[in-house]
């Protein structure tokens, strides 16, 4: 692939300079944020670039696993932070368990069964795939958490009415679980609809830019999209399964702490 020289790279900052100029002239107070965002993006990517070079030149199972653990940890932390309300400890456990089980299973199936990489820790495949699976699952679970916490609170009467008639907790929350699941996977499903027409997805764009034959690139893209969908669905399902249980005690009573 054609390399970009340092001068060429620097000249791409012209885009930002134009933006800063417009913003200043119109008196929109966003200069600082734009500047910080551009600098942060550049620095973060530069660091990431060097890290990736190191990892790819020195592939090791330990390093790959460390990065996997870091990504899992960061995504779980992100879900906690993105929650609109304070989430209780038990629910945090449910989030962590579901993220780890759901994504690791999907990543393993994808890497070892579908594309069959060698060696198993090959960072060129392992890291970007794991990143996409974990990132999308994080978004899904995040939506699921907010929806579950919200709905259980709002629809408390409905859950209790069902319990009073002799429903098991599982039956009493079935509707809530179903709609939380639905709204968690919907963004992923929707993103697949416009793919290839409205926009070319990231993996494919990158591969084509780096010289991959488009027909190979789309095969990767298709299998990655299906894998991502599966990973989101499995992760959200596991989360909801453990998540709703944190709202009931051993006496099948609804426990919503205000």
């Amino acid at each position: 692939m054609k390399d970009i020289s340092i001068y060429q790279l620097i000249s791409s900052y012209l885009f930002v300079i134009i933006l800063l100029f417009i913003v200043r002239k119109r008196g929109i107070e966003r200069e600082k944020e734009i500047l910080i965002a551009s600098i942060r993006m550049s620095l973060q990517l530069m660091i990431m670039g060097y890290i990736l070079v190191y990892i790819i030149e020195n592939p090791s199972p330990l390093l790959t696993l460390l990065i996997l653990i870091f990504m899992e940890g960061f995504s779980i932390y992100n879900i906690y932070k993105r929650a609109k309300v304070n989430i209780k400890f038990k629910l945090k456990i449910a989030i962590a368990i579901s993220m780890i089980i759901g994504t690791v299973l999907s990543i393993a199936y994808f890497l070892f069964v579908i594309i069959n990489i060698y060696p198993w820790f090959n960072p060129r495949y392992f890291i970007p795939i794991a990143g996409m699976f974990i990132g999308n699952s994080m978004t899904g679970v995040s939506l699921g958490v907010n929806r579950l916490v919200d709905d259980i609170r709002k629809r408390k009467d409905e859950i209790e009415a069902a319990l009073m008639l002799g429903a098991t907790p599982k039956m009493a929350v079935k509707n809530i679980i179903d709609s939380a699941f639905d709204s968690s996977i919907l963004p992923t499903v929707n993103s697949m609809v416009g793919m290839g027409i409205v926009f070319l997805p990231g993996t494919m764009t990158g591969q084509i830019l780096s010289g991959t034959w488009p027909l190979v690139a789309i095969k990767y893209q298709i299998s990655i999209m299906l894998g991502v969908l599966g990973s989101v669905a499995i992760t959200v399902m596991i989360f909801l399964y453990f998540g709703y249980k944190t709202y009931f005690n051993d006496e099948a009573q609804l426990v919503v702490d205000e």
Partner: protein
Amino acid sequence: MFKLTNVKYKNILNIDYLEIEKNKITCIIGESGSGKTTLVRLLNKMISYDQGEIYFKERSLKDWDSIELRRKVSMLSQNPVMFKGNIRDNLLIGLKFSQRPLVEDEVLKEILNIVKLDKDLDENIYNLSGGEKQRVALGRILLLPSYVYILDEPTSALDEKTEDEVIKAIIDYVKKNNRNLIMVTHSKKIAINYGERVIEVSKGKIKE
């Protein structure tokens, strides 16, 4: 049927002794905030008492599986909850929740007749008024072959004439089918007219 000894629940309820006998229409009265609802929620095991003991059929509630108990002691809460769908769905959902066989439309129509609701089973639930919803919720619980029905203010959204008719019909139904009825009501009149046993709750204590 129920026996309570030294039952305490938070600062809300403190009952030294109370027995609720079977085959007697029991009315629970008291001012709002006196602990009536808390008392019946304890009986249906929606909450658990902190101290003392409650027995249902001579067995401590602690030894009853909550779900099994609630299938024998079914409760209707103050605000009638409706589920998505039509009247038929809403009547049948109690049977579904308690995992019992569903019934034919004929049976559902009889139930609607008891709660004095002249509506089509296919009518969407969102078209109903508050009073109509309350009667659907009543019909839903009466369909269950439970041992006891606990009804918390079952007729609060009905006018006096309908209220009277509905309660009369419910009591007939309960007696005919050999079931038991515990009813929370704010209306002393109903308690006096229909209650074979009236329990008054006042500031978390029993006052008879």
